[in-house]
């Protein structure tokens, strides 16, 4: 079985600052693998253990962050056998319908039986790239996969946790699945896998290599701004003697009503 596991590098959200004009400052936020994509990679590793004969290719499209050797080693230390990246400056701020089309072109080049994506990314959280990718490739596709029940050549059985029920689905390959955050606990790379990662092959492709067709403009980003905050009373008591705590308790009592 040939598995592609897609991932996106996103800015570390803990290090994003909000500027005075409400825009975001990501300059101090180092790129990291988006959280749900770690679940996707772990799912690929789980399936490989089930089917035996299996190769996992990690695939990402984006800007120059994908050229960083440390970021490449990071993904390869988590289980994929090799890595393919499609790098172009114009993918830097790609919107979901664009990302899905670039991934589709790249996946057609490399070939696949199963593509695994995370349900959404840590930055835009559009939750549609995996689904659109499957639809563009005209293969079976589904989101919210919460468990791999079985996997064999040509077929996988999965559980899908929905808002009101759980579906057990039999999916004929080729297919694209998007996995939810609760499907597994991504494992932490060991020293051994980190060392092995350095020797794994990396293929860098260009827009020409994947013969990317022109992408229709369906959506444009207008703004990304921090939400306005509610005005707060800011009544602060400085000190914790008995009377001061009683005063605070009185505020709490009123708030409980």
């Amino acid at each position, binding site marked *: 079985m040939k598995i592609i596991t897609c991932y996106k590098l996103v800015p570390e959200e803990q290090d994003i600052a909000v500027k005075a004009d409400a825009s975001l400052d990501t300059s101090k936020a180092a790129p990291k693998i988006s959280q749900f994509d770690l679940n996707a990679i772990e799912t690929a590793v789980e399936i490989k253990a089930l089917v035996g004969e299996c190769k996992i290719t990690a695939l990402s499209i984006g800007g120059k962050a994908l050229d960083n050797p440390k970021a490449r080693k990071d993904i390869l230390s988590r289980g994929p056998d090799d890595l393919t990246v499609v790098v172009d400056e114009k993918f830097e701020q790609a919107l979901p*319908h664009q990302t899905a089309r670039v991934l589709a072109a790249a996946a057609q080049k490399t070939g696949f039986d199963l593509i695994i994506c995370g349900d959404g990314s840590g930055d*835009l*959280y559009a939750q549609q790239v995996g689904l659109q990718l499957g639809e563009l490739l005209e293969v079976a596709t589904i989101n919210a996969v919460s468990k791999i029940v079985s996997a064999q050549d040509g077929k996988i059985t999965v559980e899908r946790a929905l808002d009101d029920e759980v579906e057990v689905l039999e999916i004929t390959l080729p297919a694209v699945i998007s996995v939810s955050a609760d499907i597994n606990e991504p494992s932490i790379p060991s020293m051994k896998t980190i060392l092995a990662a350095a020797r794994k092959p990396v293929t860098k492709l260009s827009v020409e290599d994947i013969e990317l067709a022109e992408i229709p403009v*369906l959506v*444009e980003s207008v703004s*990304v701004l921090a939400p306005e905050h509610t005005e707060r009373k800011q009544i602060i008591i400085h*000190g914790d003697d008995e009377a001061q705590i009683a005063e605070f308790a009185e505020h*709490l009592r009123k708030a409980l009503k």
Partner: protein
Amino acid sequence: MSKLSNVWVFSDIASRLPEVIAGGVQLGEKVSAFVLGSEDDITKAYSLGATHVYYLGEKDTSKIIEDYAETMAHAISNGDSNTLMLLGATKRGKALAAKLGVQLKAGVINDASEVSVADGDGVTAKHMVYGGLAIGEEKILSPIALVTIGNGIFEAAQADSSKTGEAISVSFIEPKSSIKCIERRAKQGKSVDLGKAKRVIAIGSGIGKQENLQMVAELGAILGAELGCSRPIAETEKWMERERYIGVSGVMLKPDLYLALGISGQIQHMVGALSSKTILAVNKDKNAPIFQYADYGIVGDLNKVVPALISAFKG
């Protein structure tokens, strides 16, 4: 705000239908609802304000709802060229929207917290990005727009039984690739759903040691509050389950009361708490950012304040 001549609506969950139809009524002259289910469901859609019902037939347990994407795409492409489809922002709603987006070459926005139609300028929607740190506003440029809407953005339509109509039957189009559903079962309830709690006490690193959780739990029980925490408490210390951590990539709260104990107030945490009606904070550092977000705060020692609150509220 102007209106579109027709808005399509669909909800895979019956309880979300009144809101989705309300959105259609607000944004469209006509509201065309896809209905999958019984005669009663058709009557319900009309009574809620749909002007046309496109009937997909009875529910078929071997099919998944996403199998109807081709059928819906066909009906939509035969309608007005500039149109919008609203769906509930459920997992199925998002899957359908993405499939329809490819089939109809249409832009998709999920989890919209605001949707508007501008004069001849397409559909604009807002949704949370960067784990809640910011709101992204996007404009759909394609003639057909697909938007899944979050809870509560439109006030649910009230049923009016005098509104009726005849359903238009839609014949099923076999999808190119199908997925077989071999079993369905009810979902087991989550142990805690902090997002729905009315009162929340959150603890941060200022709590000091794990034993102190006990007095916080006691206070929580007295005040009828659920317990939550900052990211380090769940991820580094592992003193609480992951589903209790508030903020970016964690839980987004909307309680009446949020009491922060030993939480410094980093924006990554606060975005999860800012929708609280009243924010109270206890912290020993008078410069902690949490006080800027608080309605009431006390600069003091948790080990004094929490036991004092317990005895004050014990009743």
